[in-house]
Each structure stands twice: as structure tokens, then as C-alpha cells.
């Protein structure tokens, strides 16, 4: 197990280097120049001389290999460079938004898991009954309705029925828990509904499969209580594919909530991503891609390790 973990951790390094090379050079192929967007994007009548000076100041006139080398060397020291738009450290720009995005992702995950596990389990246990049909209708709804649209419905309903909207600026949970939760519970619900639907359907189908396995029949034949059969033998195994989905969805939520963040005016990673792409802020895009890639790699590692916890048949050290 330890050897496996160390191997997986070491494999993260070439993966991340590959991502770094790809993102750096692919971005340079994209047409457009951040300096022009910055100085001429709003109709500014700025001379070419000023544009060139600014490019030089930002170091964009240097050879690509030099820029790449500096960036990689900086990352090795934990320095992701300076945003070319705001001229503040990339880490600072991301850190500010990461807190909010992480919290929404966590809240949505808790919301989704708390609902999905019982929903999926009962739907499987009471297959083809009204319980199953209700769960299936709710989950199909969750899969069909885009999160941002559900978010808009929530916002408009709050406005129409209560003439109230959640706070528009972010307050960290340690500063004012009530203000924080009243702001973030709505987007967490909006994205959590779809998330919950995905996980519930996964649990239902894998539980149905597991319930037909030989070892379940054996357990029942031995006279094990049905509750124990379901919770200890069936659900434990049925959760394995759901864990993968939960992990991937969680990582997706860190940077993929672009439209939902816009609907709720959240200052999250998704909005920052879109802004930096539209501005050609290469340094910031690179920093965020690396962050999200690292998250994916890390979450995958955790998922693989969790497999061992839930499924004793898996022996990573053999």
C-alpha cells in the first residue's frame, strides 16, 4: 500500500510537467495580445509605441523558451508568476477565489451525498415501486435541468416571493457564518441538485447489480439481517463507482461553475477562468490550469486509496 501510494505520488510529477508544457505552448498559439485588450479593448486610442513599451514591461518580447524556463523555475519554488492583467501574484488572485469555490464545492458535495445515498439505495431496494419512480423522476429532472437555469429559478423565486436576495459580496465563514451560509447555500443547492442526481442514479444501478451477486445470496442464506446485508455487504461495494463520480464532480465544481457563478455573482475560480481567457492573461490561465490539474490528480489518488478502504478485495501492494 505504501509503495503504491509513493508510486502514485511520484507519477503526479511527470503528469503535471506534461500539463505545464501543453498549456504554456498552446496558449501562445491563440491569437490575441493582452496588452491590446488592456489598452485598446475599450476603444482607447493608444499609440503603437505605448503598446510596445507595455509588452516589453510585461516581458512579452522575450523568447518563448526563456519565458517558459522562468515560469517552470518559479513554479518549482512555489511562485506562479504575476497576472499580466492585474499585475498581482497569480497565487494571490487564485487564493482569494479558491476559498469561495472550495466552499461551494464542499457544500454541494455534502448536499448531494446526503440526499443521493438514501435516494439511490431506496430506489434500488424498492425497485419498480412508487419510491423508485419518484426517485427516478427527481433524478432525471436533476440531469436535465442545467444548474445555472435552476440557479436563476432560485434567484427569481426569492425575489418574487420574498423580495429578498442573498448577499452579493462574499463574507468568509469565519467572519460571519450566517452571512456566508445565506449567500452560498443557494448556489450549492443549484449545482448540488444535478450532482445528487448523478450520484443517486449511479448508486441505484450499482446497488441493483450488487444485490444480484452470489455473496449477497450467500449472506441472506446464512440468515444475516436484511439491514446488515444491505449496509455491510451490498452498499459498501455499490459505493465504489459512486466514489469515483463524487471525486470527479467535486473537482469539476472547483473550476467549472462559470455560469452558476455569474448567476449568483460569485467571485469564484470559474469566473476568474473565463475573464483571464477573454483577456489572454496567460500567466493566470497557466496558474489555474495547473491548480485544477493538480486537484484532479490529487483527487484521483484519494479515490484510488478509498477503493482499498471500501473494498477489501483490492490489494494494491500485490
Amino acid at each position, binding site marked *: 500500500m505504501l509503495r503504491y501510494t509513493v508510486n502514485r505520488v511520484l507519477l503526479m510529477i511527470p503528469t503535471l510537467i506534461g500539463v505545464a508544457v501543453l498549456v504554456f505552448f498552446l496558449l501562445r498559439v491563440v491569437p490575441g495580445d493582452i496588452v491590446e485588450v488592456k489598452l485598446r479593448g475599450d476603444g482607447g486610442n493608444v499609440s503603437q509605441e505605448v503598446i510596445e513599451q507595455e509588452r516589453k*514591461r510585461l516581458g512579452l518580447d522575450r523568447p518563448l523558451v526563456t519565458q517558459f524556463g522562468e515560469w517552470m523555475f518559479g513554479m518549482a519554488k512555489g511562485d506562479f508568476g504575476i497576472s499580466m492583467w492585474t499585475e498581482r501574484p497569480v497565487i494571490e488572485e487564485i487564493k*482569494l477565489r479558491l476559498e469561495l469555490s472550495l466552499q461551494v464545492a464542499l457544500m454541494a458535495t455534502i448536499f448531494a451525498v446526503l440526499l443521493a445515498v438514501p435516494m439511490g439505495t431506496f430506489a434500488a431496494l424498492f425497485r419498480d415501486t412508487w419510491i423508485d419512480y419518484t426517485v427516478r423522476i427527481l433524478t432525471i429532472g436533476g440531469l436535465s435541468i442545467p444548474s445555472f437555469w435552476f440557479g436563476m429559478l432560485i434567484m427569481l423565486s426569492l425575489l418574487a416571493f420574498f423580495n429578498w436576495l442573498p448577499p452579493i459580496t462574499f463574507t468568509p465563514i469565519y467572519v460571519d457564518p450566517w452571512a456566508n451560509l445565506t449567500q452560498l447555500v443557494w448556489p450549492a443547492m443549484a449545482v448540488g441538485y444535478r450532482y445528487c442526481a448523478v450520484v443517486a442514479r449511479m448508486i441505484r444501478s450499482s446497488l441493483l447489480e450488487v444485490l444480484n451477486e452470489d455473496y449477497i445470496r450467500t449472506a441472506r442464506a446464512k440468515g444475516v439481517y436484511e439491514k446488515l446485508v444491505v449496509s455491510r455487504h451490498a452498499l459498501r461495494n455499490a459505493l465504489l463507482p459512486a466514489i469515483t463520480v463524487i471525486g470527479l464532480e467535486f473537482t469539476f465544481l472547483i473550476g467549472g461553475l462559470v455560469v452558476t457563478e455569474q448567476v449568483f455573482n460569485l467571485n469564484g475560480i470559474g469566473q476568474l477562468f473565463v475573464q483571464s481567457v477573454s483577456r489572454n492573461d496567460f500567466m493566470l490561465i497557466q496558474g489555474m490550469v495547473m491548480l485544477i490539474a493538480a486537484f484532479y490528480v490529487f483527487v484521483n489518488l484519494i479515490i484510488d486509496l478509498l477503493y482499498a478502504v471500501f473494498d477489501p478485495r483490492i490489494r494494491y501492494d500485490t
Partner: protein
Amino acid sequence: MKISRRTALQGTAGAFALGLGGLNFDFTRAYAQAPKVKRGGTLNFAISAEAPHYDPHGSDTYATLHFSSPFYSTLLRYNLAKFPQIEGDLAASWQASPDQMAYTFKLRPNVKFQDGTTLTSADVKATYERLRNPPQGVVSTRKATFGDIDTIETPDANTIVFKMKAANSSMLDHFASPWNVVYAAKDLAENPAAPRTKINGTGPFTFVEHVKGSHVAGKKNENYFKQGLPYLDSYRGIFTLQAAAMLNALQGGQVLAEFRGVSPAERDRMVAAMGDKLRVEESSWTLNLIVAFNVEKKPFDDVRVRKALLMAIDRWGGSKGLSRISTLRSVGGAIRPGSPLATPESELVKLPGFSKDIKKSREEAKKLLKEAGQENLKFVLWNRNLAMPYTPAGIFLVDQWRQIGVTVENKQSDTAPYLAALRSGNYEVAVDFSNLFNDDPTLALTKFLSHSKNPLNLSRANDAEIDKLYELQLRESNVEKRKAHIRALEKRLFEQAYQQPLLWWHRIVLTHKTVMGWQMSPSHNLGAQLEGVWLNT
């Protein structure tokens, strides 16, 4: 001989005041029973974009002004109640020499920066030296506008004299520009780039915090040099990057205003939702969209083709339809319609592309295309990927040109690739835009200077006649003679059909009725200081 401030204004910006009747203001605010001013409170308002930095000298986006203006002062500024009249901000008085070769400003006494130091003429000098000759590492986006200044002298702590190399009829407008805020000389001496990240101004508010991606906050400047101002205790400018989020916030009362402008559809939605709680103010806008033909690409090197395409556009009819669904509205030439130096409608309709007899105009356009051998012309129209108003403008143009047998693809790109294509000259026809903050003709006409002088001329045409007329209007102090030069330039520009304004924008600003004292103007770059704003709650 020196002349008074009033006389100087009559010669230049004061001339605009004569034509105030022509301004297209359509305010709905009721001033009849002005309630008594109430002090205190916090104004939350929306800013639809976030400034990349705090330095207006190096910026061209309103986002920087809506962020930074409350913290700073300028030498002069526009009196928005009598726009485009100019009034003093830091300057208590000023004089222009009759030949416009010197401008002398007397500063208000005892003006304090946020850090407690007193403003002197040395601060103004340092500011303008930075603007006209930025040191290494500093961007001054309007550097060229100060090219006519020869020297800046400070005979005493409260007097500053600008001596000119050549007369420039637009100088007072430059001194009143909201971008040219005054910094402390000592800050600039320590680090000329400091204003990008540090705020130390003499404005009505002092800086409290900027939470990236969230908001900027300011509080009342207790040492503000204008007695009794500002009225508010504090304010928060909240970044709402999506129109839908901004409108929801406005409806829900989380913000009480957005000072840039909304579309007619957004206005109608909010009026329906909020009824008499909402104030709607409207004005013509100092923004326009321009159609530009790249003369380096065939067949747009042929004036007949360019002219035919302009003549096919029914601006008058288009104005009626587009103004219902977009921010486009007024038909005008190179200067904002309704402003004092604009070409009146009676003259405008005689120019190519502005005829009200669109049937006849299109027949002529077809003839011109036939003569040029381009009856089945096809091309790509480069446009920005912004819904308002670029998308409706692009669709409108495609349809207009279809009616003379021309096939056009409306290619909408994000700002970065759009600007990259335009810079490289890799386009045939483009939708360009002009973002002005006043009606100064020099500012508006710079766009049309020869490409060799101004690379932002998207037609890429070089025309010595236009350059000559531009220079003549710039140096002319007599208003009537200046008008004549502007008319001649416009005629040349439109006859050659290099580029032409499509329509001018219309500004609609929504505020809660509790927000008082804010002044509407034709530019969203003006009036962002908030010193006279108060809350009637």
C-alpha cells in the same frame, strides 16, 4: 494680454454651451420639488467591470474611473448640469492667453491628500510630466494629447503655467479630462508606477479596501476641500460582471444604481418589476459604432465599392428598429449628433450614406457596384463577440447589404482575436467603435487620421487632405472657422467612404429613487466622483 476664464471658455469649450439646446437629453428625473439633502449612509452601486489597476493615466476603461474617480481630483472638470461647460476642480481660476499659447491655473488653497500632505503646484506639475512624458515602466495612454505642451512652470506653490509649442483648441478639454487625475509628487518621486496599486488622492472619498473580484469601498474624506461635501458617509462599488446578476441586485435593492448604462430591454424589464421605485434617466451617448473598409484589400481599394456599401445602409429606418432592441439610436456624422459642433441633419442627409431616400440610394449603390464589376460581392464582416450592441449591429448590416445583392458573413470574435486581426490588417470590413468622453472634435476625429499617423484607423487609408483638415481644426480658435474645417473633413471622409459611423449609442441609467444628486451626462466616463450624491431614505 491675458483674458479671463469666461472669455477663454467662450473661445473654446464655451462655444459648446451656445449649442446646448441641441443636446439630446431626455431626463425623466423630477426636479420640481427637490427634497432637502440628507447626510450619511452608504451607497452600494454596481460596476459592470473590474479595473485592472487603479491608475486612470494608464487606462481607457470606465471601470477604472468608476473605481478611482471618487478618490481623486482633476485640474478642471465638466459641469454636468451645463455640459459641456467646464468648471474648476482643483483650479480656483484659470486663464488662457489670447493666442492659446499659455494656460495659467491658480490652485485652491489648503487642499489635502489622503495621507495629510498639502497639494501644491509641484504635484500638478509632476502629474502632467508623468502624463506627457511617462518614465520607464509607466503607461500614459493619452500621452499624445499633451504633445503640444512645451514647458510646465510653477512660479509659486499655488500657480502653474503650461506653455505651449503650438496652439491647441482642445487643451481645456484635456485639462478637464476625468482620466488626468492629480497625484502627489512625492509618491511619484518614490515610485512613478505607484498609482497603479496605491491610492492617495484629494477626492471626496478616501480608499478603504479593494477586494478583488468583489468590491471597492471608500469612506467620506473629512478633509475634502469642498465645504460640506460629500454627503455620503461611505460607498461600495460592487463588481457585477453579468447584466442579469446586476439587474437582480438592483431589483433586490442590493445595489441602488449602475452608472454606465443598460439596454432598452433591460430598462423595460426593470420598470415593469420595480415601477415607481425606479428612476430612469436617458441621454444620447458619446459612443458610436463605425463601419470601416480595409482599403488595402481588394475590392475595397475601389471607392465605388466602399461608397456603394455605405449608401445601402438605411440608418434612419435602422435607428427606429435598433433603438428598440439595442443601445444604438442616433444617426450622426463624426461628431455626436445634437452636440454643438455636430453636422446638422439638413446637411448630413446630403452626404453619402445618410440619404433619407433609401430606395434611390440603393439603386445608386447597385449602379456603383456594377461599374466596379462587383455585383456579386461577398465578404466577411469582422465584429466583436459582445451582445450589446455589436450582435444586432452585425445582423442589421448583413441584411442591409443583402438588399443590394451583397453576401456578408458576420464573424463575431472575442476581444483578443478581434483586436489581433485588426492589428494585422487581416480583414476586409470591420465594425469598429469609438469611445469618447466629451464632444471635443479633435478626440472624435483622431480615429480618421491617416493610418501612417494613427494605426488605429481601421480603413488603413492614408489621406493627406484629411490630415490637413484635422490639423487646421485643431489649431483654429474661431468656432465658425473650426466648424467649417470639421465639415470639410467629414465630407472628404464620407465621399471617400473609408469609414463611417453606423449609429450613435443611447445611454439609459437606472437608479433607485432614493439615490439623489447624481448627474446624468452623455458620457459614462464622467460624473463618477459621487461628491454630490446622497440617499433620501
